[in-house]
């Protein structure tokens, strides 16, 4: 913990109505961390992510990103929303979507500049989507859509990458590919991702933060069935990732 925290959350509470969604949350996130925010549906994970992005403001407590209010440093954050929130029929191709990541970096109106296009193309190459850049959004597979949305987040040249449920409804092979990309990006970026799936990609993830109204943190090695049972309440079917994908008996 010698690194300086780039995101600090102190005694934060949040509620949409009267029922608290988050209570007395304290989190410090360091540069180049790879954070997995996990918890049940409605537990407040996405809310915590939105607070970090400055899309919501805390009711109590403080949240700082790079020692500033999150909304002031949004240009340094790359965000990937849930794919399910997007209209799959929207008439737009991959390059146009990646270019959206350039908004806020350059001119306020009129067409994009050459350097915006170059940054978007660089981001598409980084996620292996460059060859599909003229493909309509509606014709991309689930995995390709995620890679495209990561490219869009990268196009703004962020320092932190925040992802909301990037692996929802993906099969394991595609999920693995996605994590390879994230691991590579983690060499230069801080990665924070939210998932309701208790996936155990401990080889990539550096810290696991559990959110269920309250927040607790665990080293990745300590996560076991008993802990997951506490977090999600009740029995849970676990998938062990300590065997390679493809082995027949990987359900523990």
């Amino acid at each position: 913990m010698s690194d300086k925290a780039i995101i600090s959350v102190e005694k934060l509470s949040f509620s949409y109505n009267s029922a608290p969604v988050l209570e007395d949350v304290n989190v410090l996130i360091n540069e180049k961390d790879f954070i997995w925010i996990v918890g049940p549906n409605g537990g407040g994970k996405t809310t915590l992510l939105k607070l970090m992005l400055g899309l919501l403001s805390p009711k109590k407590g403080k949240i700082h990103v790079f020692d500033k209010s999150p909304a002031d440093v949004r240009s340094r954050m790359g965000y990937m929303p849930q794919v399910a929130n997007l209209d799959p029929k929207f008439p737009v191709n991959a390059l146009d979507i990646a270019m959206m990541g350039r908004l806020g970096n350059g001119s306020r109106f009129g067409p994009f500049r050459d350097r915006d296009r170059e940054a978007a193309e660089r981001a598409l190459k980084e996620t292996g989507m460059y060859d599909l850049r003229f493909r309509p959004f509606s014709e991309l597979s689930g995995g390709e859509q995620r890679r495209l949305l990561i490219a869009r987040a990268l196009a703004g040249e962020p320092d932190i990458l925040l992802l909301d449920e990037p692996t929802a409804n993906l099969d394991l092979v595609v999920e693995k590919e996605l994590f390879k990309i994230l691991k590579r990006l983690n060499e230069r970026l801080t990665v924070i991702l939210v998932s309701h799936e208790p996936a155990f990609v401990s080889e990539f993830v550096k810290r696991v933060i559990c959110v269920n109204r309250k927040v607790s943190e665990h080293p990745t090695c300590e996560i076991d069935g008993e802990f997951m049972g506490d977090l999600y309440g009740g029995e849970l079917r676990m998938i062990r990732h300590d065997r390679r994908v493809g082995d027949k008996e990987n359900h523990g």
Partner: protein
Amino acid sequence: MAEFISATFEYPFLQYALLTGLLASVACGIIGSYIVTRRITYIGGGIAHSVLGGMGAAYFLSVVYKWSAFQPLYGAVIAALIAAIVIGLVSLRARQREDTVIGAVWAIGMAIGIIFISKTPGYNENLMSYLFGNILMVTPSDLWLIGILDIIVVAVGLLFYNQFLAVCFDEEFARVRGINVEFYYLLLLCLTALTVVILVTVVGIVMVIALLTLPVAVASYFSKTLWRTMILATIFSILFTFFGLTISYTPNLPAGATIILLAGATYLLVAIGNAVIRR
């Protein structure tokens, strides 16, 4: 067809009609594409009907109080903008009440218009031309206003293309990129309001929603990107208004209704053709 073309050279009112159709098509192609892809065409319907309130009030004032400079189209612009801002603010602040407010603005606007028109002395043939349009009665001063509105709509619609695209596709991401989502959403609704006023002169209040959506619906079968949809929708809209006028001329059919039927029939054929090809 030949008769229509030779008549066009002869009669200015046909030239005005064609020019109005051309101007309306450009606005309709651009703004229609935004609101169809954002799935808010019913907001266009609400704004269109509320326009009767403004037109009726302007008509009443010009006849009863001799405000002759206050033409119905000016009233339409004011009513459309008010309706757009009311609907926009409510849909941003309280999403669950959006449909109720659209319905209310829709009907209240019409009610105000009907009362004003009924209290205006004289023979009220204007009511019919507001409701069903009369592109053949466009005056040069109407044409000036339509031209100015068209320039505003097209310039703003294209200048902020990137912002509108981002806001329509993914509001939340746009907000993270520092875009003032509320501002652009309201701006888009105001542009929709101005487009509605332009289209009212072509096909009338009742049929605006069809002209706003059908060219885009046809274009979307041939296009996978928004800017291409805009260009194609503009071309289709020009074809619909031109051939609608042509077809209606000799048998003396109502122009607005003919344009809409032509657009509707084309859409139906394209949709069926597409379904057959895909099988």
